[in-house]
């Protein structure tokens, strides 16, 4: 096969034929391949966190904790949910500028901003949760060990998330440079 064969091959390829009905299904957001998963994750997390917001005050002794600890927990949960929403809209609207190079440049820029907010909201959420759980309790050596374990687990999660974001940004930066 040479380049000319490739050209005629390309121009004659793609002979599948979907009906208008099948194509119409694809225009519906509920049939979107990746948004379905993102939306399900968002609904589950939002439901669980809303339940937590309603029950934590009585169920987890919120009334006995300082006001600022309660406040931090509520704000951090709202920030976390906002971050999920931003992720949903970003998946729904991949950047489409007038040309591919410009689109990639915008994507890198948007991803950088989203990654900062995402990391920040996760760190604030994790720290607030820890602060809430450890506030006003008497520490023993055993509790310190458990706390250290939780802190290490959180740190590893944040690190993994950071690496993922860096990988994603580097991927699109490289693509932009390739053009």
């Amino acid at each position, binding site marked *: 096969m040479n380049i000319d064969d490739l050209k005629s091959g*390309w*121009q004659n390829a793609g*002979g*599948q034929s979907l009906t208008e009905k099948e194509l119409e299904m*694809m225009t519906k957001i509920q049939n979107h391949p*990746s948004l379905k998963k993102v939306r399900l994750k968002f609904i589950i997390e939002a439901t669980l966190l809303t339940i937590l917001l309603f029950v934590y005050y009585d169920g987890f002794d919120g009334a006995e904790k300082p006001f600022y600890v309660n406040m931090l927990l509520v704000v951090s949960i709202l920030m976390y949910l906002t971050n999920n929403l931003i992720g949903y809209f970003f998946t729904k609207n991949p950047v*489409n500028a*007038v040309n591919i190079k410009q*689109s990639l440049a915008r994507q890198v820029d948007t991803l950088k901003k989203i990654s900062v907010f995402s990391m920040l909201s996760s760190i604030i959420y994790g720290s607030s949760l820890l602060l809430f759980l450890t506030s006003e309790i008497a520490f023993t050596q055993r509790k310190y060990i458990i706390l250290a374990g939780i802190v290490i687990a959180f740190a590893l999660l944040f690190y993994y998330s950071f690496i993922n974001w860096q990988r994603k940004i580097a991927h699109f930066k490289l693509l932009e440079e*390739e053009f």
Partner: protein
Amino acid sequence: MEKIFLQTIKEHQNIIHKISRMYRNTKEDQQDLFQEIVFQLWRAFPGFRQESKVSTWIYRIALNTAIAVYRKSKVNISLSDDLPEHADLETDISEQEELMYRALRQLNDSEKALISLYLEDYSYQEIADITGISENYVGVRLNRIKEKLKSILNQK
């Protein structure tokens, strides 16, 4: 508006099939990308002012979408030199066509975009407009890609 959109896409769906097959290795990924492109085209349709050809507009959105959707790198299991013994009954892709896609999939994402537009007979100026690189550079890049493709095809 939906009726006009669906008719337009039905007439030009070959473009989306070709881009999906070139940018994704597995059938499932290709179907997902096809669906994602149709979804993005539907969202962009109200802003399409017919200043360019419909096919150019579809190519621009389709290529943008194929490149913009991030995939975690997977182990590529479909680049073996052997063709499957049985042809894909659902898609009825010929051996020659499968060889073509196999060669094209070995290019990187930017090379795929440029060569697909070249193979579709777009002018250097049109390719430059869609990709955002200069007309002169389009020529340089295409020569390199053609050389790369020749060596890929000669390996077969």
